[in-house]
């Protein structure tokens, strides 16, 4: 009977909908737990940045008894944030730009062009990801001393570029390799040179990976400590992590101010992430060859 069938379909649709809603609710529940687990430390840090040491020792997990906004001023002064912040910004940004630019260029050739030494050079870059950096502190120091680059921003930027190239090349190469082979063919037939293809076709398509490596590089450079400690002596050139370390003495620590300093320190990273976020989720965009 048609009504029976119709009725069954309705019921089926309803159960399907209920199932779908249940699934959706479950997904949102999972995601919410995930969100809380991830963001709680930041909230904790910001809350605690307003506490006094005693308050922090007594109640590390609750709201501040007194909101000590002066912790931020203390942080600004103790960590010399005005100078160090700018230095970190300069060094990190410049290093990131060069790393990504050089890295993308090299990745393009390693991923899209066949040539004899390709595989070996690629492996050569990968080796760089396997070295614990503390082993290179002394040699790097001696090297920079020899080159007269101690106490300069250039002397810090160069190792940053060098040590971030492996992971940059690694990620970009993998990403570029996944493009279909016919992408370049029409361009070549139009007479485009290799570099033109790189710039106008491949690079835009690599946007998500580029965004990824830019963020990664920035975080690495922004938080980098050991090289900065060893290669920079000049107060006016020091970077942020060095300033932030000032809060923990051998026998005393000003936790509140330390948290204030750390809160200030993560703001640029979050900003950079926000800016690049949209590129992360854009897929292959116009400019590619349509299937």
């Amino acid at each position, binding site marked *: 009977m048609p009504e029976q069938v119709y009725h069954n379909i309705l019921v089926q649709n309803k159960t399907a909908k209920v199932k779908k809603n249940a699934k959706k609710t479950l997904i949102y529940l999972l995601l919410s737990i995930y969100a809380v687990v*991830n963001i709680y430390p930041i909230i904790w840090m910001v809350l605690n940045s307003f506490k006094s040491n005693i308050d922090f020792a007594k109640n590390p997990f609750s709201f501040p008894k007194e909101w000590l906004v002066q912790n931020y001023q203390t942080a600004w002064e103790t960590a010399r944030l005005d100078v160090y912040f700018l230095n970190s910004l300069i060094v990190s940004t410049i290093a990131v730009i060069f790393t990504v630019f*050089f890295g993308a260029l090299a990745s393009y050739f390693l991923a899209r062009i066949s040539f004899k030494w390709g595989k070996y050079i690629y492996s050569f870059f990968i080796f760089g990801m396997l070295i614990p950096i503390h082993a290179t502190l002394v040699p*790097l120091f001696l090297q920079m001393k020899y080159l007269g680059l101690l106490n300069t921003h250039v002397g810090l930027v160069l190792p940053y570029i060098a040590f971030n*190239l*492996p992971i940059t090349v690694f990620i970009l190469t993998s990403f570029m390799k996944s493009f279909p082979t016919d992408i370049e063919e029409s361009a070549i037939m139009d007479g485009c040179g290799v570099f033109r293809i790189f710039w106008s076709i491949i690079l835009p398509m690599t946007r*998500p990976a580029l965004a990824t490596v830019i963020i990664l590089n920035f975080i690495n450079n922004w938080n980098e400590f050991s090289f900065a400690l060893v290669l920079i002596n000049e107060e006016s050139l020091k970077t942020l992590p060095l300033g932030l370390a000032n809060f923990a003495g051998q026998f005393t620590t000003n936790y509140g101010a330390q948290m204030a300093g750390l809160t200030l320190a993560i703001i640029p990273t979050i900003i950079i992430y926000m800016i690049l976020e949209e590129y*992360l989720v854009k897929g292959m965009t116009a400019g590619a060859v349509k299937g």
Partner: protein
Amino acid sequence: MHLFIQKKWPILIGLAPALIVYILFAIVPIVISFYYSSMEWDGFTEMKFIGIGNFLEIFSDKIFWQSLKNNLYVVAASIFGQVPIALFFALLLYRKLRGGKFFRTVGFMPVVISTVIISLIWGMMYNSRRGLFNQLLTATGLDEWTQNWLGDPKWAMISVCITIVWQFVGLYLIIFLAALQNIPREIFDAAEIDGASGFKQTIYITLPMIWETIIVAVILCISGSLRTFDLIYVMTSGGPGHATEVMAMYMFDQTFSSTRYGYGSAISLCIFFFSLALIYVSNLILRRKTV
């Protein structure tokens, strides 16, 4: 690898900037530090050549092997923790979901926070007397499950691993998201027409398409976990005993505390070769799956 170019010079130009900086400021220091590994040197007095003396000592050094074992825990936790969890959430988040952007951003936050904060707050949560975890267990009547998470040698390494996994899931999340965005819509449309949907779609279509990226993630995991240092250094300093000491920390200790540069450099060399071996093996295993 697609194009064959007649002239070689574009390749040279493309690779040169990256190679030059990389060789000069990463490879050279690394090679110098490997040179130190054949010496007995305390950094202050003269170097003494002892050939493979350091390596023989490493062979019988119980602490080194303990640190190696600990590193393997981290590698396992990373590969079997970070990758699947990141994959799971990436699959949830890359479709159009209300608030997707928010969850993505929040998921990335742990990567941005400094290790000082992470170790402080997780240290407090793990605290056996007042920590969050034990309090929750007691509140739900599961008293016997409470542990001295960081102070008990049996549990310390596991606890630390959980924190490490938590910190970097966000990173792999955005890498997987970038890769998922790359899959052309046409493929999914074709699959829908063929009748495959939902879960089946995921297993048979999505996963194979991003298999290369999964390999990338695993390799990043391995290289990262074998060099892990910051978090453990601040959280437990390698204790209790040497229960959470990892190779990079042992190297750091030997180099800067016991001032045995030669021995420390020898350990770095071991880390390097071990990483190489592990990556080679995993590459073999994983690539067999790509048809």
